[in-house]
C-alpha cells in the first residue's frame, strides 16, 4: 500500500468514525423524543397496545385481530359475567402478536377468562404477520419476555434495536396523532372495543380456497404455550371462530385447530356459520367484520354459550 493511499484511509477512517458518532448522537436524541411521546399517547392503536401490556387488570381479556377488535362488546360481558373486561384486539395482528401481548400480561397478573378470536387459516404461514411484529418493537427493551417472539421477525432484530429510532420506525404520525385530543374524539374506544357502525350491502357469501396450505409451526407452538400457560395459571381459555361472511372451502386448517383444542381440553367455539348471522347481512360491516349491531348479538350469544359450557 502506498503512503498516499494509507493517508487517504486514515482520513476516511477519521471522518467515518466522526459521522458515525454524530449519527449515534442524533439517533439517541430523536429516538428518545419518539419514545417519550409514544408512551404519552392517550388514544389510538399504540396506546391500546401499551395499555394492554402495562396497565390492564381486567378479568376478561379478548385477543385477536380486527375481528376481535370490532366484535366483542364490553358491557355485555361485564353485565352477564360480572367481570371487568378489556379487548386487546388489534387490526391486522394475529396469533404471534396476541401471544406476545398475553405473555406480557400474564407476567403481571392472571386474568379469569381469555377469549381468543381466531380464524382457522390464522395458523397458516404469513410473511406479513412476521413483519407486523415490528409494532411490538417499542417494548423490546422493557419487556424481555416478548423478545423471543419479536426475534421471529428476523435474525438481526437484536442488532437493529441498537438504534433508538428503529423501534418507532414509521410511527411518527401515529405518535403525533395519539398525543392529540382530537384523536380521542375521532376514534371511539370502549375498553378496547371499537364499534363499526356501517352496514354492508347485501352480497353473496364469499367462499374461497386457500392456495398455500402451510401450517406455521411457530404459531402452533404459540397456541400450545397459550394453552399450557392458561392451564398452569388456572385461566379459562376459549378459542372462538366468530361469524363471517367469508368461508374457506376446505377444512384443512380447521381440523388442525379443533384437534389441537380437543387434545388439550380447550374450548373451541365455532360460530362462523351460525344461521343468525349467515342469514342477516345487516349484522356485518363487511365480509369479515361484524358491525355494532352484529357485535351485540354475537357477544350475547357467546356469553350464553360460555356460561352454559362452564
Amino acid at each position, binding site marked *: 500500500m502506498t503512503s498516499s493511499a494509507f493517508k487517504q484511509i486514515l482520513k476516511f477512517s477519521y471522518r467515518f468514525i466522526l459521522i458515525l458518532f454524530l*449519527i449515534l448522537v442524533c439517533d439517541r436524541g430523536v429516538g428518545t423524543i419518539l419514545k417519550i411521546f409514544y408512551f404519552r399517547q392517550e388514544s389510538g392503536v399504540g396506546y391500546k397496545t401499551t395499555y394492554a401490556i402495562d396497565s390492564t387488570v381486567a378479568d376478561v381479556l379478548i385477543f385477536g385481530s380486527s375481528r376481535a377488535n370490532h366484535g366483542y362488546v364490553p358491557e355485555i360481558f361485564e353485565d352477564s359475567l360480572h367481570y371487568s373486561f378489556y379487548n386487546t384486539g388489534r387490526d391486522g395482528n394475529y396469533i404471534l402478536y396476541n401471544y406476545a401481548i398475553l405473555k406480557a400480561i400474564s407476567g403481571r397478573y392472571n386474568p379469569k377468562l381469555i377469549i381468543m378470536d381466531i380464524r382457522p387459516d390464522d395458523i397458516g404461514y404469513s410473511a406479513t404477520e412476521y413483519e407486523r411484529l*415490528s409494532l411490538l418493537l417499542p417494548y423490546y427493551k422493557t419487556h424481555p419476555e416478548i423478545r423471543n417472539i419479536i426475534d421471529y421477525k428476523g435474525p*438481526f432484530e437484536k442488532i437493529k434495536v441498537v*438504534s433508538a429510532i428503529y423501534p418507532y*420506525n414509521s410511527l411518527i404520525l401515529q405518535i403525533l396523532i395519539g398525543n392529540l385530543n382530537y384523536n380521542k374524539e375521532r376514534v371511539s374506544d370502549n375498553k378496547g372495543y371499537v364499534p363499526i357502525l356501517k352496514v354492508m350491502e347485501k352480497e353473496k357469501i364469499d367462499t374461497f380456497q386457500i392456495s398455500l396450505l402451510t401450517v406455521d409451526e411457530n404459531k402452533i407452538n404459540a397456541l400450545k404455550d397459550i394453552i399450557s400457560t392458561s392451564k398452569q395459571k388456572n385461566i379459562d381459555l376459549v378459542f372462538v371462530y366468530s361469524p363471517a361472511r367469508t368461508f374457506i372451502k376446505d377444512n384443512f386448517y380447521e381440523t388442525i385447530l379443533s384437534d389441537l383444542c380437543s387434545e388439550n381440553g380447550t374450548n373451541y367455539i365455532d360460530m362462523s356459520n351460525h344461521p343468525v348471522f349467515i342469514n342477516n347481512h345487516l349484522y356485518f360491516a363487511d365480509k369479515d367484520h361484524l358491525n355494532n349491531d352484529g357485535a351485540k348479538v354475537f357477544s350475547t350469544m357467546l356469553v350464553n354459550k360460555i356460561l352454559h359450557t362452564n
Partner: protein
Amino acid sequence: MVFNSIIYLFFLAIVAILYYIFPRRIGWIWLLIASIGYYISFIPIFLFLLAGIVFINYFLSKWLAKIPEEKNTGTLILIIILNILILAFFKYFNNIFPDNQVHLYNVDFFFRVDPINKMILPLGLSYFTFTVLSYQIEIKRKTIEPEKHFGYFSLYLLFFPKIAQGPIERPQQLIPQLHQSHSFNYDMVVDGLKLMLWGYFKKLVVADRLAIYVNAVYNNSEHHNGTTLIVATIFFAFQIYADFSGYTDIALGSAKLFGFNLTNNFKRPYLASSIQDFWNRWHISFSTWLRDYIFLPLAYSLTNKMKKQKYLFVSADKWIYLMAIMATFAICGIWHGVGWTYLTWGILFGVYLTYSNWTKDFYKTIRKRFNIRKTSNFYTLYKISITFILVLFAWIFFRADSLNEAFYIIKKIFTSSGSVFYEIPSNLIFAVVGIISLIIIDLKREYFNDRISVLYNKNPFVRIAGIIFIIIVILVIGVLNGGQFIYFQF
C-alpha cells in the same frame, strides 16, 4: 442477501476492508470469491449454471475471434441461440410446464433451508445473458479482443454489485478497469457511499412506501374507483423509478468502493420531453443495448433490402423505422417477462415512437405556423407532461396482472370517480413526501446542477448534516422491513 438487507452492509464492509488489505495483485481473486459468495447467498445451485455459461462463453469467444469478420456471422448466431435458449428455458419454464414440480433448496446465511417447488429464474440471468451477448457481439465486430484472463472474464460477468439487476455492462467499459490496480481512493469511496445512501433513500423511503399503496390498490382493482386507480398508477410510476434507480445507485456506489465505475442507468426519466428522450434516460444500459444490437443492425439490414423510395405513399425510411422499432420494443417487452402485458407494454412504446417519427414534419409545421419556440419553457413543460402521461399509460400494462385487468383499470379510470382511498393516512402522507423529495432532487439536478447541493456542498458541515439528515429520515419514515426490488424478477 439483497441490497436492502443489513447483512449486505456487513458483507460489503468486510469485502471492502479485506480488498484494501490484500495485495493489489490478488484483488480480483478476492472480488471473484466475494461475488461467488454473494451469488451463493441466493440459490447456490444456480452458481453452477452461471459458471457453466462463463466457461463455455470464454472458449466460444476465443473461437469466434479467430474467424474472419466476413465469415463469423453464423458462429455468432449459434452463440446467441445457445445463450438465449438457456435464458428462455428458465424464463418460460413455468409457462411451458405449468404443473412442474422441481426440488430446489434455498440455503441462507444461517443455513436455513427453504424448499422451492416451482422453477424460478436464476438470479440475474437476464442481465447476465445480455452482458454475455454484448461481449460476443463486440468480438464478432472486432471492436474488442477476447479477454485472455479467465479470472478477469469471470469477474466481468459475475461482479456482485451488478449481477442481480445490472447495469448491463459493455466489455469496453468494465474489462479495462479490471486490469487496473485500484488503490484506496478517498474521493471515490466517499462518492460511492453517498450514492448508496441516496439509493437507500429512494428504495426505503420512496419505493417501498409507495409499494404499500400500489399493491393495496392494484391487487384489489375491482374495489377501487378511477381516482384511486389514477393515484395508484402515478405512485407506481414513481415506485418503479425509485426502486430500480435506487438499486442502481446502490450498485454503482458499491462498485465505487472498490474503485470501479459502472454505467449509470437513469437520468431523471420523468423530465424527458419525448418518448425517445425517455428511453435515453430510463434503464440506459438496456436501452442502448437494444439500440446497438437490435435496432440499428435491423434498420441497417432493412435499408439494404428496401430499395424503393416510397411504399404505399410513405417514404421507405419511415417503414424501416416502424419495423425496426416495433421489433426492438417487442423484444424489450418479452425480455421483461412472459405474458401479453409486457409485450403490450413494449409494443405501446414502439407505437409511441413510430407516431413521433412519422409526424415529425407535421409538428414542425405546426410549430412554425403558430410561432412556437422549441426552447420555450411552456412548450418544454407541455412536452414533459405529455411524455409523462404516455409513460404512465404504459405502466398500467406493466403493473396489471393480465391484459383484461389492464383494460378494466383503464375503463374504470375513465368511467368511475370518487374520493381517493386511504386506509392508513400516514402511508399516503409519507408516500407523497417521498415523491416530492424525489421530484425536487431531480429538478435540481436537471436545471440547477451543482448550484445547490447538500451532499456535495463545499461546506463540510452542510455535507455532514445532509448525510445525517438522510439517515435519520430513513430510520424514521423508511420502510425497513420492505420487500424485494421489482427488477429482480426480470
